[in-house]
């Protein structure tokens, strides 16, 4: 089974792009399956199901979505195998830009959109910096010049990735993306494999339900802001 992780900030068009790409990949003898990770709610599984793709949803609820992802991803592979999936696309929302869902040896895709601002590529962490493919969406509504500046900034943020331009509405560019997915490495189990980078961490009273604000509760892995020198 080929595994592809697709991550990106909310509303960039991950689902639209996966739907268009899966349409190219899904054919007799090659089944595409979808795992959709989200935080609180999603209706995207209906879209996938409507497209005839086997889909399973994981909602992280009150847990860090990244940690939820890594705790469940191997089970998702098992599900995929049970469904006789040949290409498993795992979609996860990059809610904090510090997300780091990409796995060593598995094809890693990051999706960003042209509307997010030309400096955004440098503000996104491992999700973009360590991806194999960066997909840029919504190119049809901004100027050519902004597209070129945006792509250049993606290039600087991740000089190794292939950059693809895909239109989630028309499907333009989806066939190039499918060419890459078609070549994603086969992986049967993730047991013992590593993430490309540690996930964002926080082990403190607030992680387990503390709601009171105050110094007494700032224990464990706490980071404090620095405010520079205050004039006397």
């Amino acid at each position: 089974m080929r595994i592809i992780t697709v991550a990106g900030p909310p509303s960039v068009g991950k689902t639209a792009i996966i739907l268009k790409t899966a349409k190219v990949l899904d054919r007799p003898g090659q089944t595409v399956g979808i795992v959709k990770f989200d935080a609180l709610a999603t209706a995207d599984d209906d879209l996938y199901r409507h497209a005839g793709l086997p889909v399973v949803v994981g909602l992280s609820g009150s847990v860090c979505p990244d940690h939820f992802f890594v705790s469940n991803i191997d089970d998702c592979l098992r599900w995929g195998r049970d469904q006789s999936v040949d290409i498993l696309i795992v979609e996860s929302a990059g809610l904090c830009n510090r997300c780091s869902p990409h796995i060593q040896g598995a094809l890693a895709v990051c999706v960003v959109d042209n509307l997010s601002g030309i400096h955004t590529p440098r503000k996104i962490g491992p999700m973009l910096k360590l991806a194999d493919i960066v997909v840029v969406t919504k190119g049809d509504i901004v100027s050519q010049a902004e597209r070129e500046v945006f792509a250049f900034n993606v290039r600087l943020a991740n000089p190794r990735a292939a950059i693809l331009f895909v239109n989630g509405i028309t499907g333009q560019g989806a066939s190039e993306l499918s060419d890459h997915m078609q070549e994603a490495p086969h992986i049967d189990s993730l047991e013992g494999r590593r993430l490309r980078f540690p996930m964002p961490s926080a082990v403190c009273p607030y992680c387990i339900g503390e709601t009171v604000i105050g110094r007494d509760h700032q224990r464990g892995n706490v980071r404090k802001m620095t405010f520079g020198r205050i004039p006397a």
Partner: protein
Amino acid sequence: MRENLLSLTIDELSRRHPAFADFLASTDATGSKPGRTLEAWLAGLTDDRLSQVGMDRDQIRSHLEALVRRVDALRAAPHATIRSLTILGGRDKSGRAETLTLVLKAGEVLCIVGPTGSGKSRLLADIECLAQGDTPSGRRVLIDDAPPAPGWRQSSERKLVAQLSQNMNFVVDLSVGAFVAMHADCRMVPDRGERVRDVIACANDLAGEPFSAQVSLTQLSGGQTRALMIADIALLSASPVVLIDEIENAGIDRKRALDLLIAKEKIVVISTHDPILALMGGRRVVIRNGAITDIIETSAPERANIAALERIDRGLIALRHRLRCGQRIDAPLAWAEELGKV
């Protein structure tokens, strides 16, 4: 190459290209001694700092090495030039063969006409993605009489096609001057200040209403926006092919805009029903049911009619100007009276 890069100092690397300065600044390296080597700096990074950078030491090293290669490649890359683009027919929406070999030369303007839904956008899209029989139309596109090298389809640095459409807007919150300068930096042009002035002067030339380098991009009028986009594509974009989708009523000097693109040896493909634009092209293709059904050479009588169409156009522009200035349109419109007799 690896040894080489690691022995550079923070300062040397920063001066190499703003991209390195940016990266080092974002990792707080510029806060450390500028004379420190990259190797010493990397070794001294704490786990906490690495976590904020979002990469481990090996990843930072390979990131910087890849960045060196990219920047060098961008600097060395010559301006992409192509002599011709060839469109080989596919099939129409009913599956009937589209018998066609259409060759476009550098500096040529081709117009696309046809009813809504006939497939004009599909043709533009086929050119944009350099279709190789893998799009719904089954068309193939050749560059300089040969199938495009894989790099043309994949590479983000070497985009063959620049696009301009009515739906496009500037969304970035910057002044005109600052943004064009940023684009010039991406293109790594040596004469940045001069190039920025050229683009803005040229855009002012095309737009009816003048604007300065200080004005915010998002405050430009529709006409000024189109004018700046065209000037930027002509003078800063490396793409040798320009696709223009429906820019009628854009409030710009269309003839000068086209002349500018032609002078830069671009291949210009325009989807339009604007009679002036359509007749300015050397040829126009007619699309029906997803296929090109006719190729019309612009005839001498048609060219002669451009002058009359431009008179009508100027008449309308003058009326718009009067309205803008708060004046009345109560004088008899002799030129329009004549039209009524046709």
